[in-house]
């Protein structure tokens, strides 16, 4: 172990804290909440310390050679410090401040929940600080499994099903990634991220590297929620408790992006083909996510689909950075800043959703509408998140979206000048703006429904009577909400600084010239997007996605066809029916192949004997028949190596009534008479009811059968011994 000890503490202290909190929680719930707060606070403080150190220009490393075979390697640089800080902040806000209020009344299994939450914190820190993909993978797997407890927390049908999906995607994705890592290690001989960059740069034959990159990317893309591996995301978020949803969406998806960044910036840096592939999936993820969000009428489901869509934006940024190569500074900044922004925005929005759910236990827009009226803190926080995510100038989301947008335009320009095929990228640019519009539309839908519309008068009265969000939770909401405009307003200093810190991770040197985020072009882009959003809201949401009821009230309807679900349509049938049926049939046949063969042979032997018995019905032939049967049996024994049991083990011979012999009959009669005598005399009240003749006969048969089995098995062993001995002699004599 060498290097800065703070780095491993970031990973292992929360894990130790998790166990401590669990044990404390078995004694006192209140003390446990304090302990959880303390662990989160200490983690945040350490992360802040690391961040300050990085801002001061320092860096740190930690190596634990031999840990788990290939060693643990952690490192501190700008990107890692920023994400450690964000993780610390998010855990502190959600579980230090918000969760105790959220879980106040009705939740079971909180001890288990906190145990896994803090374990996940440690693992997440480990992922973000890792300097070798081996370390990344170790912590990534731990994180995947511990976060399972969040999704399954409710233990209801829907939760278990979502959790099953989550686990399946995590495990299959993890294994595919492992396979990729393995091939990478075999090809370039290292998994250290910095060395991979150098080693992959030297590789001349890129073909295998694409396969490696694709395999590694699959596991990470699944965690990030990229299409078509996003299936867990819209299901897991709504069923998880809100503080956990915030983390799932804000930070766990980013661990996936972390891996994708390594693939894109280190394994295939500035590779146009890879960039195009990422772009295709990025655009689909972005568009499909927003479309699903637009159709959803469930608050948390909308936010979950929105997360998917925002990840798509990030992927587009990564793709543009790869496509632009040396000129990719803008795109790199955009992707990195959008990661940060999305984490912070989703923190606010999911906590706001939690503030609604903890009071109402409902998420359907029709049922919760009007809840936000007269609740200033909640209103403020949600508004900040809403303005942030739609890319309103002066809020943080505007900056990153503008940067990505500008990078697409830049690439279109470059292609135009060089005479390349620029039209597809122009389409991407338009889709980008249109998706931005959809983002605005579904966010307006949520915002208007919760904070402006009124529910039916009685319910609304009940809502209004509900008090404001209690203190620590309100603090968490307010503080998290405040960060977004602060970042946005001072974006030219703050966000440029953050992007400058992080850019090294993407092997980028940043944009060539100093930028003003509030340039004319950026503002126009934002305005276009918001106008599209307003139009979509008016025409699509108001027009198509609501329905006027008889009493004149509008209700939101879910017009998305439920059958159009990739999981239900493809994955589950494939995994649950097609594959098991095929494999099952093959296995079944293989499993019984030997048995059936023996059974057939044995049955032939027995049938032959039976036939002879029936044909001649004479004692002499009986003996011959038995003899043949024995021959057949022994032959099978040696032929199929003792699988002979199939004959007598599975297929019972016709059970003849046991007769016994004269001796057993005599004994049985004797005992029966004694019993009868006793029944008449001594045991009149409790007569003996056994039939000794039958019992003795059965016993005799049983004994004979056992003797026969024993003799056969011994004879079998002896036979083989003899075969062996013959060969011995043959060779000794030779």
């Amino acid at each position, binding site marked *: 172990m060498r290097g800065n000890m703070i780095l491993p503490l970031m990973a292992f202290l929360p894990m130790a804290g998790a166990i401590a909190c669990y044990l404390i929680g078995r004694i006192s719930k209140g003390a446990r909440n304090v302990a959880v707060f303390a662990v989160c606070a200490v983690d945040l403080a350490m992360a802040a310390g690391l961040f300050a150190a990085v801002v001061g220009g320092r860096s740190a490393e930690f190596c634990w050679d031999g840990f788990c075979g290939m060693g643990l390697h952690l490192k501190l640089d700008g990107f890692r410090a920023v994400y450690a800080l964000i993780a610390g902040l998010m855990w502190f806000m959600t579980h230090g401040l918000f969760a105790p209020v959220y879980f106040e009344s009705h939740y079971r299994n909180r001890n288990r929940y906190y145990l896994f939450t803090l374990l996940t914190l440690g693992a997440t820190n480990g992922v973000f600080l890792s300097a070798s993909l081996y370390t990344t993978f170790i912590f990534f797997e*731990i994180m995947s499994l511990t976060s399972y407890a969040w999704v399954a927390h409710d233990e209801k049908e829907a939760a*278990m099903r979502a959790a099953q999906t989550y686990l399946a995607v995590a495990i299959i994705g993890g294994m595919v990634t*492992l*396979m990729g890592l393995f091939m990478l290690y075999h090809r370039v001989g290292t998994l250290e991220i910095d060395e991979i960059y150098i080693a992959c740069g030297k590789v001349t034959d890129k073909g295998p590297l694409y396969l490696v990159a694709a395999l590694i990317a699959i596991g990470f893309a699944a965690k990030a929620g990229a299409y078509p591996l996003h299936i867990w995301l819209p299901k897991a978020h709504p069923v998880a408790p809100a503080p956990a949803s915030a983390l799932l969406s804000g930070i766990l998806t980013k661990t996936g992006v972390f891996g994708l960044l390594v693939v894109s910036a280190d394994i295939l840096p500035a590779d146009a083909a890879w960039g195009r592939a990422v772009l295709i999936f990025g655009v689909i993820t972005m568009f499909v996510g927003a479309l699903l969000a637009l159709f959803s009428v469930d608050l948390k489901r909308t936010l979950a689909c929105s997360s998917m869509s925002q990840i798509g934006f990030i992927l587009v940024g990564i793709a543009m950075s790869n496509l632009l190569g040396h000129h990719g500074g803008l795109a790199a900044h955009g992707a990195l800043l959008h990661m940060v922004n999305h984490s912070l925005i989703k923190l606010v929005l999911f906590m706001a959703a939690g503030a609604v759910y903890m009071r109402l236990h409902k998420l359907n827009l029709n049922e919760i509408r009007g809840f936000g009226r007269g609740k200033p803190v909640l209103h403020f926080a949600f508004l900040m998140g809403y303005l942030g995510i739609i890319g309103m100038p002066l809020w943080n989301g505007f900056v990153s979206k503008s940067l990505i947008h500008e990078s697409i335009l830049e690439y279109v320009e470059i292609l135009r000048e060089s005479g390349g095929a620029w039209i597809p990228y122009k389409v991407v640019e338009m889709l980008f703006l249109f998706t931005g519009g959809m983002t605005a539309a579904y966010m307006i839908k949520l915002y208007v429904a919760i904070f402006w519309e009124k529910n039916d008068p009685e319910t609304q009265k009940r809502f209004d009577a509900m008090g404001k969000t209690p203190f620590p939770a309100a603090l968490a909401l307010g503080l998290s909400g405040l960060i977004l405009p602060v970042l946005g307003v001072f974006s030219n200093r703050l966000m440029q600084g953050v992007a400058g810190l992080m850019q090294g991770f993407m092997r980028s040197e940043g944009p060539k010239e100093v930028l003003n985020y509030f340039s004319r072009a950026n503002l126009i882009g934002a305005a276009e997007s918001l106008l599209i959003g307003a139009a979509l809201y008016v025409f699509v949401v108001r027009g198509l996605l609501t329905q006027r009821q008889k009493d004149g009230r509008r209700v939101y309807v879910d017009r998305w066809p439920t059958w159009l679900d990739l999981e239900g349509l493809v994955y589950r049938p494939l995994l649950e029916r097609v594959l098991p049926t095929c494999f099952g049939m093959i296995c079944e046949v293989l499993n019984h192949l030997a*048995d059936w063969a023996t059974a057939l042979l044995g049955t032939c032997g027995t049938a032959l004997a039976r036939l002879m018995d029936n044909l001649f019905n004479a004692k002499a032939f009986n003996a011959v028949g038995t003899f043949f049967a024995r021959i057949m049996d022994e032959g099978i024994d040696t032929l199929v190596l003792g699988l002979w049991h199939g004959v007598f083990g599975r297929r019972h011979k016709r059970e003849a009534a046991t007769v016994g012999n004269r001796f057993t009959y005599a004994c049985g009669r004797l005992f029966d008479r004694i019993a009868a005598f006793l029944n008449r005399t001594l045991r009149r009240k409790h007569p003996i009811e056994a039939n000794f003749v039958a019992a003795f006969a059965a016993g005799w048969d049983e004994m004979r059968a056992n003797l026969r089995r024993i003799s056969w*098995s011994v004879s*079998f062993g002896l036979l083989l011994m003899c075969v*062996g001995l013959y060969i011995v002699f043959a060779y000794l004599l030779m």
Partner: protein
Amino acid sequence: MLLLLPVLIPVVGGLTVGLGAFRGRLIRSIFVEAVTLATSALLAWLIVNGQGMTLHALRLTENLTIVFHIDGLTRVFSGLIAFLWPLATLYAFEYMEHESRESTFFAYYLMSYGVTVGIALSANLFTLYAFYELLTLITLPLVLHKMDATSNRAGRMYLYYSISGAALAFIGMIFVLTYATNPSTAFIYGGVINSARVAGNKDLLLAVFLMSFMGFGVKAAIFPLHHWLPTVSVAPTPVTALLHAVAVVKAGAFAIIRLIYYSFGTHFLRGTWAQYAAMALAMFTIVYGSAMAVKEQHFKRRLAYSTVSNLSYVVFGATLMTPAGLAGSLTHMLFHGVMKITLFFCAGAVLVQTEREYVQDLRGFGRVMPFTFGVFTVAAMALVGVAPLAGFISKWNLATAAASSGQGLAYVGVGALIVSAILTAVYLFTVVVTAQFMPLNASSAALAGRKLDPGWRMKLPLAVLTVAIVALGVWSVPLVQFLLRVASGLY
């Protein structure tokens, strides 16, 4: 003489118990545990200090001798059983209180320890063969312990498979004797086959190798000779856990390693069709065993199928015929032993405390038996190969060895390992999720709120094993390096 003691002590101890020397349960238990611990301590001392010791115990003919010795491979295998046997015995005390005829059971249990040690210490193929046969016979009563129809059938099946397997192995032994440089079956790293004598008969000898590979492969449960293993899971859990997940089956894998690396020799076998055939069988069994485990709903049988699959990991490593392959194979032999015995112990604890045998009956048991299922979760994650636990290390080493062996078929093996890992996750995590995250069944509603974890004699081995699983994963480097040296023939 010292080498004979670890074989004799348990056998004599077992005979003493079997002849009914003890009436009281407590005294008998203390005696059994003392004998086991003494043997383990002696073995531990021998493992550390006994490198190179040899003992000629018995000379039957010029070429057939019973010889014991200690080399690297001996140290690995005997280390494994010396670690596990006392734990399993402690576990068995509590477990067997729920069964009948304890004296008989412990008599054979102790004796089989001696015989297994005999396999580990054997210095030539003949000694190995003799003890291998003996192990079958001595463990048969343990399989038959319940004495009902199912056990009877399982016992018969076990006997047939094992003896016929041994007969095949016997043929191999004769051929090794015939073609060895100086006619003996002694184990020498690199093999004893004399290439001058083989000339012209190579294919015959390869066929014989494959035959004896299959012969020893019966105990290592290689497809298509695996069927006995899930069947004998009717035996009491200490037997299933120790013998049919570690001692007996690992003896099969151990014998295969001896056969490949110390008798026929990798030089002779590498690159031949026999190697590919053996490797293909192992690879197929890896996936097949896991697939069957997914299908199986009976808790113990599911674990038994998992053993089928994992034994083939060990055999697969051995059939790579490189030092790295053998090292990976030995790593998995040790780690799988520790992990699987833990899983079986948990299954046994459930069986003895609540008589639940099927996976779907375990719903919500994580709350009823928190300790047992906590341990089970850790062991399950380890077996799936979640880093940083033990299973990850051994699988990583196996896959690395396969990829660096330079054989095309071995790459397919890496794929098989990954597919099997996913299937492992399915069949083990189903149990974990069922127990930890689902509410209790209607039929087990009566158990709600009760704590049914077993007593300390079952918990202590589980705790020790769990610590071992974590520790072996995190600090594996010294052990793996030792194994690599063993696999390179340095010991």
